[in-house]
């Protein structure tokens, strides 16, 4: 027995030596270049001359204890690490793609209009380690609440102490309930940080306009009974109630959100609610998108529901109804189109 163990140890030693050698190669080729990452000084917004008066800018973000933390920007960040769909796309929408040095965790490919900017960004399939992030020497990390947990990047003070600002999207776990106001605020905050406030306000105003249009349309009409859900296991439906963005959109455009609490319900409950429109949330590719609808339509237990009989089951991608950032517009569009098919959306 002992002999076997010694043979094993020798084998392990050999494996170790080969790994040690090859890892050194790895280190050489992929070592994070810490000198020259942020060289692109090109496109700035036209407000450059007025930079002196815009900064310093103080923004409120949050820490893991969900308490507000004030951070100050003396100038626009130039080395941004953006993680998660909305954090990335909000910056792209504000034309700040050239400030992003690294990105990770997209749920779905970025929208076509951002694709060109995005191609220039270093994208990580897997989340970079804390060590890697420190090595990048960013000046801003924008992401979601879960990123700053102990086991991931640690609480925000760690970064603030090192002169690295952080921003946490409020609907990603900081604030309950999740609502549109938080999304508007996040976008506008980003605008302030990058001195791109005009653009940010424009995006938010458009969202509000759409909602207002829908509100006007529905005046005097009967409210449409609506449910937004995500299919879990067979026969279990996670509801996006009024405390979610999806739900908030639905309520604000004047629908009757019959399942209004964030809870999990069963087939029987769904049948009892008998909604006229069902939105089914999915994340992933087109196959998943199709399936999310099929799961509902082909479920014989649900066939008495009005929405199914009238074929009003619409898929909606997660990034449009959860911590949605600029895709909130798309979310608004999807929901309005689903509930009011006669209302033309711009």
């Amino acid at each position, binding site marked *: 027995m002992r002999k076997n163990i010694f043979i094993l140890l020798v084998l392990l030693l050999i494996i170790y030596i080969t790994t040690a050698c090859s890892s050194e190669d790895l280190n050489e080729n992929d070592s994070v270049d810490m000198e020259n990452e942020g060289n692109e000084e090109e496109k700035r917004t036209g407000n450059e001359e007025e930079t002196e008066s815009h900064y310093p800018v103080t923004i409120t973000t949050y820490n893991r204890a969900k308490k507000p933390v004030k951070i100050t920007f003396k100038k626009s960040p130039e080395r941004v690490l953006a993680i998660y769909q909305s954090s990335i796309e909000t910056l792209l929408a504000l034309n700040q793609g050239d400030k992003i040095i690294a990105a990770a965790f997209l749920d779905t490919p970025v929208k076509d209009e951002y694709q060109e900017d995005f191609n220039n960004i270093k994208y990580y399939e*897997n989340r970079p*380690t804390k*060590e890697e992030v*420190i090595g990048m020497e960013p000046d801003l990390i924008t992401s979601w609440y879960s990123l700053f947990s*102990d*086991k991931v990047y640690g609480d925000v003070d760690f970064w603030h102490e*090192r002169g690295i600002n952080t921003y946490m999207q409020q609907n990603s776990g900081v604030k309950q309930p999740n609502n549109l106001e938080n999304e508007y605020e996040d976008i506008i905050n980003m605008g302030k940080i990058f001195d791109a406030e005009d653009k940010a306000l424009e995006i938010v105003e458009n969202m509000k306009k759409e909602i207002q249009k829908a509100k006007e349309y529905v005046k005097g009409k009967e409210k449409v009974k609506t449910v937004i859900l995500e299919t879990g296991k067979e026969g279990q439906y996670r509801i996006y109630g009024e405390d979610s963005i999806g739900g908030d959109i639905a309520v604000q455009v004047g629908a009757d959100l019959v399942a209004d609490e964030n809870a*999990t319900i069963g087939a029987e409950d769904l049948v009892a609610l008998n909604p006229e429109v069902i939105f089914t949330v999915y994340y992933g590719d087109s196959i998943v998108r199709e399936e999310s609808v099929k799961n509902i339509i082909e479920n014989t237990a649900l066939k008495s529901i009005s929405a199914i009989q009238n074929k009003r089951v619409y898929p909606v991608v997660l990034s449009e109804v*959860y911590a949605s950032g600029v895709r909130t517009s798309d979310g608004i569009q999807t929901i309005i189109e689903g509930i009011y098919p006669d209302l033309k959306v711009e």
Partner: protein
Amino acid sequence: MSKVNISNLKKIILKEKTSYIIFSITLLVILVFSFLHSITFGTVDISVKEIYSIIAYNVIGIEGIDNLSRAIIDIVWIIRLPRLVLAIVVGAGLATCGVVMQAIVKNPLADPYILGISSGASLGATLAIMLGIGRKLGSNYVGISAFGMAFIVSIVVITLANIKGKANSTKLLLSGMAISTLCSSFSSFIIYTSSNREGMRDVAFWLMGSFSGAKWENLIVVVPFVLLATIFFTTQHRALNLMLLGDDVSITLGKNLHSYRQLYLLITSIVIGFLVYNSGIIGFVGLIIPHISRLLFGTDHKKIILISALMGSILLIWADVISRLIIKGSEIPVGIVIALIGAPAFVYLMINRNYGFGGEK
């Protein structure tokens, strides 16, 4: 005649002792070497000279790091070194507690979490993350909650096993299983009925064994405690040996194991509680390392606790390195790496039943 035979005996014993000492020293050397080497691994390229000058500065105060960027200093001193120290401590702690637990329940299939500690810790973390319980305790509240719950569960298990007569190994095992199941049911219930999507992801993450949360302020507490506990258990080899023989035999040999058992359980709960607080749940180490030690040197606890602790540390140092290197720029939780190594190793051990894992020929 008999004198000659006795001296032959003594020679055999001496040979055993010598091979044990050589082995232990070798392990110690490997540990030191592993420590020095593993700190040079990472995604960012830092030279050995830079690394050691950073350590020298922070530990002894030798100047010479002015030209290094803050980032590099942070990486070495705040990221890599604490991880390493944590890996060593967790390895030693899990292996030692594994040996002790196996003696307490008289079962070579026991691991340190067997008496409900892991379910308790999970429940604590779940309560903290999903329901926000204990948030007032400060930024470490998840860890404190996990630790607190693990400890409470241990007490409950011990108390339950003592109802209607003193706790013996069987009663402890059953009690542990029962409370374990209770805790996991509660956790599942909370997760299911909650609408906190981020929370679920957080809980899963938190429980997954990983050293990325290593912090000096926590290590200052954990390291001395685990060190002392390990040393303590090495002195307890007689009681641990007797535990394997059973309560009845033990009494005739002069020890009432009941109080020893409770004391050991208490200490291991605290150690494991600390370990879960800092690194989540890492399986297999507490199960397999004691087996390997026994394979090499038999069951006498005088020998196996020390080498188990050393082997555990070495294993986790390298598991951590692997977890950081396998995917460029990213890391796999070390618990997964250990499972990938541990499962085949365990199967191998089960197949090779030479050493009395279950008894007679």
